[in-house]
């Protein structure tokens, strides 16, 4: 199986290199260190959300509510600091914790009530976004202290701060998925949930943890986002879930579960980001970029299916 997996990642890496070369040839401002680091900064929020999404999809589930959780945590951060008067660090921690709670809610509905993940997260997509709108009463919170902006707008050793956060998270996620029992449980649940259960694995606990992590990380992404744009709005994060899912699927994770790697997800994220940026730099307008990304998604999955021998979809 490792060989087949490596096949997809290598194909993908080749596609990525080809795209980089093509885009670099169309604009000399594309392949500069400055631009690449900047893209890393812009990619961090979707990137963070895509990491636990990989786990979720490997288990055969899906989480459509991450964008709404992001919006909810953003609003809570502002409200807890400004309206309730808590110190900002505490508000940040509580906000992220609330994200985890939201994810736990998802996990609870999915494991305890056995609602299919698509439906459960479709409902919480509306519910959490609605809570964000209701709690915020359409007011934005702005005027944060200077140190807060370092997270989203600052650099550390020349590299954007959130890129460091993302790299650390990616390494952690990759380690967990590949080298720990939990990672193997994740794959097992996705490959055959009934068999996993009968083998004595704590399937429900694993799922609960994964969905909670998805919410927690969405909360972290929310804090970074607020820091980057220096304000809170209840419509933040709309569409993030589809971007994350696209990146995960592009990276080789099967939507049916049982297969996928963090490396693939990161490659997928990079490809989408360089496409959005490179195409814009070579003069393609926004609508054209959307079309290309859609086509790339279908084409690359087609290509990797052609090379696959084991016949799974």
């Amino acid at each position, binding site marked *: 199986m490792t060989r087949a997996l490596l096949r997809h990642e290598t194909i993908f890496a080749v596609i990525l290199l080809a795209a980089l070369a093509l885009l670099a040839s169309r604009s000399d401002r594309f392949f500069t260190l400055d631009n690449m680091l900047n893209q890393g900064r812009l990619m961090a929020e979707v990137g963070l959300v895509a990491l636990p999404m990989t786990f979720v999809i490997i288990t055969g589930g899906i989480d459509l509510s991450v964008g709404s959780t992001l919006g909810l945590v953003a609003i809570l951060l502002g409200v807890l600091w400004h309206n309730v008067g808590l110190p900002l660090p505490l508000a940040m921690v509580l906000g992220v914790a609330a994200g985890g709670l939201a994810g736990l809610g998802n996990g609870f509905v999915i494991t305890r009530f056995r609602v299919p993940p698509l439906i459960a997260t479709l409902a919480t997509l509306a519910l959490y976004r609605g809570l964000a709108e209701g709690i915020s009463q359409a007011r934005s919170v702005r005027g944060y202290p200077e140190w807060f902006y370092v997270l989203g707008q600052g650099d550390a050793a020349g590299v954007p701060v959130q890129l460091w956060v993302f790299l650390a998270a990616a390494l952690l996620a990759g380690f967990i998925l590949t080298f720990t029992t939990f990672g193997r449980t994740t794959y097992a649940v996705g490959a055959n949930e009934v068999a996993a259960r009968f083998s004595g694995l704590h399937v429900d606990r694993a799922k609960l943890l994964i969905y909670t992590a998805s919410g927690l990380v969405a909360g972290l992404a929310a804090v970074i986002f607020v820091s980057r*744009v220096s304000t809170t709005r209840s*419509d*933040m994060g*709309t569409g993030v879930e589809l971007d994350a899912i696209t990146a995960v699927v592009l990276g080789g994770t099967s939507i049916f579960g049982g297969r996928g790697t963090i490396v693939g997800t990161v490659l997928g994220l990079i490809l989408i980001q360089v496409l959005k*940026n490179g195409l814009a730099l070579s003069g393609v307008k926004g609508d054209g970029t*959307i079309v290309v990304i859609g086509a790339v998604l279908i084409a690359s999955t087609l290509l990797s299916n052609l090379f696959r021998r084991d016949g799974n979809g």
Partner: protein
Amino acid sequence: MKLTTGTLAFTFSLLAGGAMADSVWTGGDSLPTNPLACDATPGTVAAQPYNGGAPTNPPDRKGKKLTVVDIPKLIGIGYFNATSKGIADAAKELGNVDVKTDGPTKANIDDQITFIDNYITSGVDGILFSANDPVAIAPVLKKALSKGIDVVGYDADASPEARQWFVNQAQFNGIAKALVDNLAKEIGEDSSFAIVTSTFTTPNQARWIAEMGAYAAKCHPKLNFLETVEAQEDNVLSFNQASTLINKYGDKLKGIFGMTSVATPASAEAVTQANLCGKVAVIGLATPNAMRPYVNKGCVKSVVLWNPVDLGYAAEYVLRAVADGVLKPGATSVKAGKLGELQVINGSEILLGSPFVFDNSNIDKFDF
């Protein structure tokens, strides 16, 4: 069975709880309002020092060809198609400006920021924008300024220090006064009205509604506000929401404000399909093409309060003047092509002029 009744009961109790609506004026923001006088006395605008930002070490662009990008809130709605046309017209007249309009397909700050960021990297000379959120867009605009790019806004402003100039179609309180006065004239002082807006987080709409509330309370105290509904930028949703309002209030509803170029035609359509043409007034912002059928039928008496094509046109001329060094901080007016001299107000805002009203007599002359 217990679970069923339990969840249903819980849901309905929540409904009941939510039914205790909060303040009467929903849709307005909470910033201080400044209603104008009830008669025709124009508001006084105290001269203010320049409060816009400045680009860092801009190259000398005087007389040279400019590459400009226009990034509105979203593309694909009539209003921004019109501003885009104005910008393109101005560019053609100037002859030395290369401009294109690009933007997100949804009114989303994150997408808009990414667009601006990409164009900064690609090295444009100037950026024109209409912001989805004044504060959220500030960091990326400041970045543009720091790279020596000229930044001018129109329609929806950013924080002043994030751009050099802002072309304002009209003062918020001026728009509010015109809207409310026109409605009161059509439906009478002792009537009720409702508002259809986009979302509660769009800054312009929220400001207008707040100013309208303050002005109505001051000068038309008997006008009764019923409620505001959200309809995003979706015209089928706007139509459904407006229809529901008409259904809910029946005879009590005499007028509807449409706060966006999507909401107004949809509200007019709702009134037409309910056979209430002439009995329920519809007033608001919209483009002539969308409103022509209703104005020609007499269903809507007057439309729009400024000319978006002129707005885009002025914005482009302002950007050229800034790039050429002709328009400097502290100036009191600027020449904008066929629009003549435009006044500078509030330090770094350029006022387009008095509101423009489309009605039966002139609506056929426009095509946008």
